[in-house]
């Protein structure tokens, strides 16, 4: 819930008789203020430690790197708000890169590669949705299974080798529009569109209703099955888009691209952003901040040439701190 009541007069401050000795976070009337604070801290720390952080090149580079992740995080925010979950998005990204890379490497036109691989991604998302809605198996289980399965399919498609696409997609991957990296433009459009859908369309509000209480949503005339299928299909389609973005940035697909690790980062970003794992609550702004925070942390560790072992440690630590902060924030309200 991001709507803080402006009229909070802080009754407890005027209460000498009932001192509340429990430890409290600073008053957070601004939504996501904890997250913003953390982001500022990390940025400040990074700029002190290394000069190369606060340069335009580096910052644009960070943004390019997080763009694909931001796109799947956007889809995941919508899905998780509706009480769903998809652990296979990172793996769908991987499969997309492999399918597109193979097609391009086999001299198919680029547009065809994009259309086919994104169609595949959408179908994969729909399959998740069909299994989840019609078998009623927990989405967590279904999509963890498909994630593992698709990671294998990915290796099969690549035959275990790296496949390069040369400069075919470099306009998307390296080009800029008015100085802004094209990848970033795509990510911003997707995030903005998702935010719009969640706030201003009945479909988006359906997601909140379904996540809040599925029975009530159904009884209120919401077509829950259709909504869920659309949401999972959308998750697949956005994974496809992220796959193309990633392929264009890396100029090829190789074992180790995307997959479960990418998914876990996306889940972390969404959860850090305050989206509820139980559904019913979520904001794109929070997710965006989560993506940025994780991206900046990774970048800083890189610049400081800290071993990649610490990368995992820091992502885990950030996730834990943010999750605890969210919880304390919610309890205060």
């Amino acid at each position, binding site marked *: *819930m991001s709507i803080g009541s402006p009229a909070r007069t802080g009754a407890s401050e005027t*209460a000498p008789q009932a*001192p509340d*000795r429990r430890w409290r976070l600073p008053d957070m009337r601004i939504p996501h203020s904890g997250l913003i604070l953390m982001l500022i801290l990390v940025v400040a720390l990074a700029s002190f430690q290394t000069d190369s952080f606060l340069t335009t090149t580096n910052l644009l580079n960070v943004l390019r790197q997080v763009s694909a992740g931001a796109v799947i995080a956007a889809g995941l925010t919508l899905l998780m708000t509706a009480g769903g979950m998809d652990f296979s998005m990172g793996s769908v990204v991987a499969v997309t890169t492999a399918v597109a890379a193979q097609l391009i490497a086999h001299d198919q036109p680029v547009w065809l590669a994009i259309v086919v691989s994104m169609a595949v991604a959408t179908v994969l998302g729909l399959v998740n949705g069909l299994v989840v809605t019609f078998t009623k198996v927990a989405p967590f289980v279904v999509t963890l299974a498909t994630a593992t399965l698709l990671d294998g399919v990915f290796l099969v498609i690549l035959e275990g080798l790296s496949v390069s696409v040369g400069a075919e997609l470099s306009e998307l991957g390296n080009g800029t529009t008015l100085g802004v990296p094209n990848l970033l433009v795509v990510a911003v459009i997707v995030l903005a569109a998702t935010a719009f859908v969640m706030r201003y369309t009945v479909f988006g509000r359906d997601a909140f209703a379904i996540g809040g209480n599925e*029975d*009530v949503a*159904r009884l209120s005339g919401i077509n829950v099955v259709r909504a869920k299928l659309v949401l999972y299909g959308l998750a697949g389609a956005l994974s496809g888009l992220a796959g193309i973005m990633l392929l264009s940035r890396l100029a090829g697909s190789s074992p180790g691209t995307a997959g479960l690790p990418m998914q876990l980062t996306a889940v972390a970003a969404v959860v850090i952003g305050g989206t509820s794992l139980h559904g019913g609550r979520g904001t794109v702004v929070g997710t965006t901040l989560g993506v940025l925070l994780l991206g900046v942390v990774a970048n800083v560790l890189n610049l400081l040439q800290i071993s990649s072992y610490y990368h995992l440690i820091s992502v885990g630590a950030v996730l834990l701190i943010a999750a605890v902060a969210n919880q304390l924030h919610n309890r205060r309200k």
Partner: protein
Amino acid sequence: MTSTMLDSITGVGGPSPEAVIRVRDVTKSFGGAAALKNVSLDVHAGEVHALMGMNGAGKSTLVKILSGAHNPDLGHIEVADRVQTQLTPRRARRLGISTVPQRRELVMSLTVAENIMLGDLPNRRSVVRWRSVADEARAALDGLGISIDVGHIAGDLTVAEQTMVEVAREVRRGGRVLILDEPTACLGADAAEQIRALVRRLRDGGVAVVYISHHIDEVLGIADRITVLRDGAVVRSGVTGDIDERGLVRDMAGRDVVSERPQRAAASRDVGLAVRDLSHGRSIDGFHVEVRKGEIVAVLGPAGDAQSRLFDLLSGRRRPDRGALCVDGRPVPLGSVSRALGSGLRCVTGDRRSLGLIPDLSIDENLLLAQDRLAGRRLHRSSALARRAAPLRDDYRVVSLAKNPPVGRLSGGNQQKVLLAKWLGTRPAACFLEDPTNGVDVAAMADIHTLIDALAREGVAVLLASSSAEEVMRLADRVIVVRGGRMVAEHEINGITRDELVATVLGGELS
């Protein structure tokens, strides 16, 4: 909040030697608006102390303060002559304060036995002794004259049974204060009487009971002392003998409230809602009814009987074994929510928490949840939403401290009003209402009754499931009595008195 408030400590009733709990000048605000203002009262051992007041008056907030769930902003409470500053639920429990909150708190996936013994499972070296669990739980229920199989899963019980289990759990844990927040709100006459008998027994044993109810005769019959809250402040506190019904209503509502059966024109001859041979397992068998347009037909039975299953079957949530449904003369397939909605039938659940409202969404959004979907809207703007929701809020007198908070933060009665407004605002062709005044105050009850009258006057066929004979007498044109899943009697309301009706429900007479 200056010293003037603190000066008025002498307050209500005066300190009494045997008061187990003293509440002194308690003030509690949520987000700047006060839910309790300077409240003082004493709870005595061996007395039933009733709290009364309109929806949102602050009764449950006071209960939460007594049970340690909230801390007061100002003022304090004394338990056993000691000032308690940092009361927590644990500490309250240790001090002997047991609470059955308004919102039922059973672990729905565990058995009745485990729920009763929760936190206190008999064990030998940490290994649970299941036989003792069942035995002790059974003993706790038997002691209260409740017959529920302790092996049942709590979630499968009816709301009435869940209430009984929760009371049994608190009574078993013992203590000198028992707080019951609307224990009889969803119970039928017989179950409610059981609860009251139990309360009397405990009181005679020296327990202090804090009892909340919106039913005035119930309170006048059971309470030794009554405190009335209005807008968070105490407006009256005294022994029961000094207060009559009219005065009580005026204290609570700030005005007189009259709710009388209006003269309604005879219903039209067209059947608006017809149910034939509806059967589902053992819970309902061969139920049939024809409700004409503009007619209100009540289905009355013990809480948890056939009438509670009707919602699931008519709304399309569950498919019955057998049966047919006609709305406005057109057959409607059973077991499909969208077909039921499409036919113009509106079913209002009696279980607003799990089937009625979405607690995290705002009041306005809940009010228009169904209407917007039925109208096929695509875009959603919160300013337009507020404008369209405003008349509903006014008609149903939804009161909230903040402007548009999540509906879960409203008091229970106000949530009920939102639920009714959500459905009755969608121009129904026929209506099924389950316990529509569950937990609402006297004034709101009168309002809701008037709204249901109006619904019938507009020519809507209304089927009303109820466990309250009073409500049936007030609203219905015709009543069907069910027991054990079967229809046992049908009466025109003019041809029967309230007492005869109650006797029929209890099984005194089969006709």
